[in-house]
């Protein structure tokens, strides 16, 4: 099996793993509905508190939350399981092949994220956005959504690579998600946060792509000219590089001392 075949095989495997982990009907019937309900709830709370302006702000942030939620928790779980289970095929691979596998998986996750965003957008926009022309804008924003899902993916890799202690890492994704909701400019405008949280939010993954998405959808600001996109790329690269390096180190540890 050459690297390309291996990549294809692992991409399929990644897709299958996700399907097997939770049957589709259970996934749609439980998790998906719950998090979409959560998005609608946050938008409604924002409307009750701050009127239409706040609603619009919260709406675009909360369209993306379900995808981010599913994506990085999924990536986190899959990678951690692999490291924990000490998969022999991963241990025998070169670093380049491992990187190719991770890239291949990122495409699977992007497809998954895109469908979740479409699903969430369809529900939220049917309730809150009149007309149909905004759909064109959503499709025009696909590269931005790719950036968003890559960012969530790299953050998932980063979290999974922090496999320092099983007990800590079990609660990491939940903690990160709630923390992202606070400082990620999803629902609460970062301007209303204290200075140190505002500074911290500049380094938070996903935050800048959410800003660019909101600017594009509401103010028609082209995202390719938006500096937020390039800032997000830098943050995404940082998390990917650090995550990948630590991930390799974890694998090396298992190579030396197989469980």
């Amino acid at each position: 099996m050459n690297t390309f075949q291996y990549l294809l095989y692992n991409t399929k495997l990644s897709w299958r793993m996700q399907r097997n982990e939770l049957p589709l009907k259970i996934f749609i019937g439980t998790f998906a509905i719950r998090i979409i309900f959560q998005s609608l709830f946050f938008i409604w709370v924002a409307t009750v508190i701050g009127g239409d302006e706040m609603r619009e702000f919260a709406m675009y942030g909360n369209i993306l939350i379900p995808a981010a939620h599913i994506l990085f928790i999924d990536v986190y779980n899959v990678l951690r399981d692999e490291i924990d289970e000490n998969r022999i095929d991963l241990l025998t691979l070169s670093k380049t092949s491992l990187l190719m596998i991770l890239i291949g998986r990122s495409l699977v996750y992007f497809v998954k994220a895109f469908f979740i965003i479409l699903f969430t957008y369809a529900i939220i926009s049917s309730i809150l956005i009149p007309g149909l022309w905004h759909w064109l804008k959503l499709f025009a924003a696909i590269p931005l959504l790719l950036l968003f899902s890559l960012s969530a993916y790299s953050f998932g890799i980063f979290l999974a690579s922090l496999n320092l202690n099983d007990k800590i890492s079990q609660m990491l994704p939940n903690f990160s998600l709630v923390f992202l909701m606070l400082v990620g400019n999803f629902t609460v405008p970062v301007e209303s946060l204290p200075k140190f949280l505002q500074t911290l939010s500049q380094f938070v993954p996903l935050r800048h792509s959410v800003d660019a998405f909101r600017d594009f959808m509401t103010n028609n600001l082209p995202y390719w000219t938006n500096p937020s996109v390039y800032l997000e790329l830098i943050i995404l690269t940082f998390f990917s590089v650090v995550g990948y390096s630590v991930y390799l180190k974890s694998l090396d540890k298992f190579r030396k001392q197989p469980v």
Partner: protein
Amino acid sequence: MFYSIFKVQQAKMVGDPTIIYQIFIQPIIFTLLFGYLYQSSGKEGAVLLSVFIGVGQMTMWQVLLYAGGIIVRHEFNRERTIYYSLLSQTDLFGIWAKRLFLCILLTTPSFLIALLTGVTVFGVSIDVSDLTYLVISVGLYMVSLYGIGLPLILLLFLSVHGGKIIQTVTYPMFLLSGMIVSVDYFPYVIKGIAFLFPITWSTHWIQEVFIHNTVDWSFLGYTLLISSFYALFARVLYHFIMKKIRVRGEINL
């Protein structure tokens, strides 16, 4: 018996990192999230305080569901089912009720942490009478949480994916109970549904006290009444589930 359940259960809970996170960290982040959200719209004082109470109640609710899941997973295994099959239904329900009561006790620190974070960070002042109402409201909320928790956690027995299903069932319930936004903002039909849950009554009571300065003691009676109905329903449901388990000889129904 009570002490032995307490000892085992406490060890299970304290050893679980997620529950530690839910009790000690989640209330802080959610208090900040909703506190800043409300503050950015110019809300302050009593409104903020009732939001912090809502966040505290919300985290109590989450801790209870998670802790309930731990009980079902760790305690009601095959060996225990055989042991339990020797006991009467009344004894069994008593054990279940005691276990859940300990979970309710376990949820209280999260309420305190949410309240303390809110009061400290956002500078909300509370006096002695407020404190009295807060204590009553926590007690009332614990009763209603206990009432509704008894049948809800039993849903975990119903399938392999019980954990996922229970979240879907309980999520709308928690959102409708008006912890974060008062049920006064709801349309009439939804408001009617919301008042079917005892937690809505206890939550609404404290919101009325702080936001509208109205102390309606009859709410306490209604909360207790509805909670008892749920507890009775749990008794029937428990009987049904245990009967099924004995017939099938396995937990996942």
